[in-house]
């Protein structure tokens, strides 16, 4: 009888033991649900959902990897997520709360509720709160300053570029960038050494020319500008140059100040890009449900559809590298969302973890 009890206890312990877990978490911005999902890739599930604000899109990880900054396209703000506690520690406005509407009439509710003291429009414009839900100048792009003490934010509306001091959380500089032809939306910003790279595009949909503009990081003086493909979506900073994905013209273009851009054709709908070492780039091709593996030195390219068995993973947007560099975590952002784990060695989908539909960006943080 005693042996039976012991065996039963062992079985019970085996069943209830703590599941193996990963050394890192994967964070995914889930634009449709105002959250960031915290995913344990070993358990293969979302272990936490952090409400951050309206339409969370791009994310960047701080240099010490303790902070993640999430651009809230719908709330005119950036959320700072503490990677240790997995909580929102602060939010910053990326542009001032307006006193008046476009037609000049005052927004009385902003005065009545002292909206000017808020640090995110999500405080009031949230599900069940003030309407409309999506407000502001649509911040989209994000980059750190050279000293990592500031964030540069590009906005779709007004082609605005803002600089946020991370110590104070205040916008310390802002400028509406002059358009380049009809390209008047600042679709993304990145930093290459002491230069900023801004992708300017016309209001979409459009097949008109877009441009990549180089600015001096300190003065924001224009240093150079070159045409790029239609609808530039993302700027990937490289050592001395920047790679731009041109969503509508199915190309990646390599830009360096003063040089003619070099173009690489990929499968339709390039959006996010991931540097995977040795001059290789993984291009996430939204419309073709595939990734392109591009060798920028040779120009050679291989394409891989995101499939596992008869399951297709559609609309890849962004990717992040696992700490060991062997896997890419790819956001499949259809109405049925998945975090696709792509084996970079064997070049196939190894795992797919359900996430919310309409998710967007992904970063990796250490598990504390």
């Amino acid at each position: 009888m005693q042996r039976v009890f012991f065996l039963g206890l062992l079985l019970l312990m085996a069943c209830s033991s703590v599941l193996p877990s990963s050394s890192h978490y994967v964070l995914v911005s889930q634009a449709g649900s105002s959250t960031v999902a915290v995913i344990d890739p070993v358990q293969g599930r979302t272990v936490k959902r952090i409400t951050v604000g309206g339409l969370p899109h791009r994310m960047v990880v701080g240099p010490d990897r303790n902070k993640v900054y999430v651009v809230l396209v719908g709330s005119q703000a950036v959320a700072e997520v503490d990677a240790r506690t997995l909580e929102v520690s602060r939010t910053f406005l990326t542009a001032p709360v307006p006193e008046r509407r476009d037609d000049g009439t005052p927004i009385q509710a902003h005065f009545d509720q002292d909206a000017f003291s808020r640090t995110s429009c999500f405080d009031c414009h949230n599900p069940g709160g003030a309407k409309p839900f999506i407000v502001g100048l649509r911040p989209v792009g994000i980059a750190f300053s050279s000293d990592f003490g500031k964030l540069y934010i590009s906005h779709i509306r007004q082609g605005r570029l803002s600089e946020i001091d991370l110590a104070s959380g205040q916008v310390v500089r802002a400028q509406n960038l002059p358009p380049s032809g009809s390209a008047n939306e600042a679709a993304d910003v990145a930093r290459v050494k002491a230069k900023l790279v801004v992708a300017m595009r016309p209001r979409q949909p459009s097949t008109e020319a877009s441009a990549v503009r180089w600015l001096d990081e300190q003065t924001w003086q224009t240093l150079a500008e070159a045409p790029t493909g239609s609808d530039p979506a993302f700027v990937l900073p490289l050592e001395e140059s920047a790679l731009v994905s041109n969503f509508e013209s199915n190309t990646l273009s390599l830009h360096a100040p003063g040089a003619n851009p070099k173009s690489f054709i990929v499968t339709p709908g390039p959006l996010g890009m991931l540097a995977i070492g040795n001059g290789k780039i993984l291009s996430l091709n939204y419309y073709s449900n595939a990734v392109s593996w591009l060798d920028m030195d040779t120009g050679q390219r291989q394409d891989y559809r995101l499939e596992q068995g008869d399951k297709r993973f559609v609309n890849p947007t962004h990717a992040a590298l696992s700490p060991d560099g062997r896997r890419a975590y790819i956001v499949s952002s259809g109405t049925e969302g998945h975090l696709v784990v792509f084996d970079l060695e064997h070049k196939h989908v190894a795992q797919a973890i359900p996430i919310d539909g309409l998710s967007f960006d992904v970063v990796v943080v250490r598990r504390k």
Partner: protein
Amino acid sequence: MRNKLWMVALMGLFGACNGGDSGGGNVAPSAPNTVAGLVTDIGSGARLSGVTVRVVGSSRTTTTDARGEFELRGLSAGLVKLDFEKAGYAPGHGIAESASSAQTVLVALKKDGTEQSYNPTQARTLFQRTEAGPYAVIFQPNSLDTTDTNLRVVVTPLDPTKEDSALPGDLVAGGASSTPLAPVTFAEFSILDSQNRRINLKPGSSAIVELPIPPELRSQYKIGDKIHCYAYNPQTGRWEDFVEGTVERSSVDGTTPVLRASIRHFSWYGGAPAVQEQECVDIEVRGRDGPLDGAVVTARPGLRAVTNRLGQASITVQKGGPVNFVATKTYTDTFVDSRGNLIPKPGAKVIDIGKVYEDDLIGLDGRNYSRRPGPCPPESSQSVRAAATNPLPIRVAPAPEGLFQALALLQPGGLAFVQLEKGIPNADGDLENAEPASGAQITISDNTGRTATLTELAPGTYIANSFDIVPGRRYTLSIDADGNGSIDGSGSAFAVGNVSWSNLVNGGSYSAASLTATWNDSAATQPGYSALYQVTFQHQGGSGLSDFAFYVGSELSFAPRTQTDPPSPLAPGTYTVTLNAFSGAFGGGNLDITDNITGVGMQGQIFSIQPVNPITITLNP
């Protein structure tokens, strides 16, 4: 034992008879992994026979029978994606659950838009005009994946405020907390070559589409707003390729607010932002004998729930917005074999349907049902939850046989009048051998909560006594055409406002060169109101192109010009000027009055007309 078997067999027989005659169905378990369905015309409500039904990803096909119904048995468990095809209709798609009991998919097909020829080597804008405005597709040269230069393009518009049941797939962003997508404007784009094969864009190529914002939604979506757009992928059964479109002025007419977006794959396409404010609605589905277990309740495409043993289900909907709820219950008849086993009888089924349009609830039973902050809890916890205290009742009954047709006139300042007929639909969905339909239960309600039941004045003729039609109010008709307790069709329209000339008076004199005629409509500022105005200037005694000017449109002004090329100011003289206002549904190049009373087995038109007394004016040089 023998007695027991006999009793079971008798019960099965009773069940089969009961199901066939009244739709009460039998109590035997439905066939597992069976999907049954009913395919109708979204415009007429007519049952559609001969529709090819394909199971996506397999070779299984079937065809709808003379009643527009089909049944697929022995399917794999899980979601089943179905394609529906019938000549003259835009492709339809449906999703059903293959589960332990038979389930129903209701599919409404929409008639194709007008076919237009296109040579793909050329840049071209093709459009289909409707009451909401022009639906357009803008092609770049050589962007289509074909060498055929004789293509046909069909743009089939769909206004989701009225026709969301024809939308394919689930308009939901899935995940741990599924987010409904609120349909704004949609269309289906079919491009066919000389061999009748579907053509699409070359990989990497795109086109621009423009889809009008429905008048009811224009107050929500302003010029410059961004709306997420999706293309339906029949292979995955999902809405994919979401990109931002922008609300802009139509490039076709320069005035209609349209959603303009880039498209990469021609299929069903449209705009549907994520619903931020959700509510949970408790539903109770009842048949003739009480609450029904296993009934499927659908709100919008993708918002679906199955009733529990209490006949109740909870369904997540958009907060604030009116929702059309549809409930179905499928019975597959059974017989008892020699061993006493209940065996499904192939091909035998009864589909009960009930609909509740939330707009119709004003003043009616169920108006006080509760909505809770949403989303609803997961289904796993719904099965054990307590009975809802105030659920929205949906009564289901067999869909009517044949086809009912209603013609409803709202006379501003007068009465509401409905003429109801019943007949057999022909191949075009029109009635043949129509006879007056007696015994219908028809209610009318307005947007202030007033309601009335119409009385039958003569066979098939119904009138609302003591219910004045107030100009500028929105009226909804709910029609139980066969009087069996379930609403078979409904529709709504605004009564035309008080319309009058603002700058023209009878006997007045005006400059032909500088005249712009303007008029007022007291309802013009009502959200969702979009009247059609017809204006004519006819030279008294004249009959030439220089003597006549006309306008048909939704603006409140018009500069009269001759019908010559180029147009010029009208010739001086005395003119009779007419002004008519129309409120209802219309479409096509000839602005035909189209159906806006819809349902299963039900079609019709509800509209309002106000003629303004003709005036005589003099135009001077």
